[in-house]
């Protein structure tokens, strides 16, 4: 089963999403900020990354930009997690290099469907 990296500074979100994905059979790794997320991505080579955008120190936009500039990691699909789903923010999400986005609060069936669409076949 695919491996998914969750990068989010909110413990609760990581725990909830992680538990849900594990219950659906995914392998889950977690990181609590952008820096740790980049390290985990390089070390664990996940099949997909769920990236919170609003994090302290390094935002999800910045972390995604760094991932997409790394030739070893740029192939990994990144789905942004954001409570701000206005058009302007969506544009910024795609400009940062994200492959898709999911609105917070998380709709779990939608999460599953979107992950399915972006996982490599």
């Amino acid at each position, binding site marked *: 089963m695919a491996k998914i990296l969750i990068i989010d500074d*909110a*413990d*609760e*979100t990581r725990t*909830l999403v992680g*538990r*849900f994905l594990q*219950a*659906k059979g995914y392998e889950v790794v977690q990181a609590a900020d952008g820096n740790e997320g980049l390290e985990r991505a390089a070390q664990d080579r996940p099949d997909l990354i769920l990236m919170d955008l609003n994090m302290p120190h390094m935002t999800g936009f910045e972390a995604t930009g760094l991932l997409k500039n790394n030739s070893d990691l740029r192939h990994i699909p990144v789905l942004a997690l954001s409570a701000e789903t206005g058009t302007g923010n969506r544009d910024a999400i795609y400009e940062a290099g994200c492959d898709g986005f999911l609105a*917070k*609060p*998380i*709709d*779990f*069936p939608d999460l*599953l469907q979107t992950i399915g669409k972006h996982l490599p076949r």
Partner: protein
Amino acid sequence: MTQGQTDPDLEMILADMRQEFIENSEDRLDEVEGSVSRLLADAGRPDHEQLEIKRHVHTLKGTGGSFGFPAITVWCHALEDYLETIKELGVDQLWDVQLFIDRIRDVLESGLNPDDMEVAAAVKGMPLRGLSRERSPLKAGMSVMLLMPKGIQRKIISRELTTFGFKVIIAESSLSAVDLAITLRPDVVISSHVLDRISGLELARVLGAIEATSHHKFLLMTASDEIGADLGGLPDHVTVVRKGRGFSADLIKFLSAQKLLN
């Protein structure tokens, strides 16, 4: 799985997680109440307790919507706004925090998410005494007599009415309510429908027939399934309000209709 089909496995996982969310949230509310109690008792470290309150509220706000409780997110958002607005967390403000927590707990315990309009109206009309008095929604000098069985619900409603700005008079029985109403002339009477000896509706009729008390407005509290069942022929001065989580919204609607709000 094609679109429109349900996935029993997914449904089961989500049902388990929803139940866990409810239990965890109740624990969080207990923690917040613990912090409020400690701060009211001048125990604990204020900075630490305040941070804990904010942390729990923020977490609840972020997760409520994922489990079919967007109202919890709205209430938590309003509480966060409130905590941002106030300068200090004194006694009045702590009671306000408790009021928010009561609302959130009402939603959790009901297991149902209230109608959006109901939540919006309730949030808008929150009787917050920790803010400046100019923002109190109620006209000054209003009194209310409350008649309902002794217990936690009476305590909650009494506290809510007090924070709203009412002077609250508690009546212990329907007979003492008549006596108090004649003596103290409350502007509003709020009574449970189900009482010992005579019903709330009968009490409303009695008070309406006495000249000294005929000016008052009467709010009759019922469980929602009682409405329309045995409350036919309501006198003009009687308004039915719901017990529990609908009470606050109904009260605000009533006060607004009676032009008792500033």
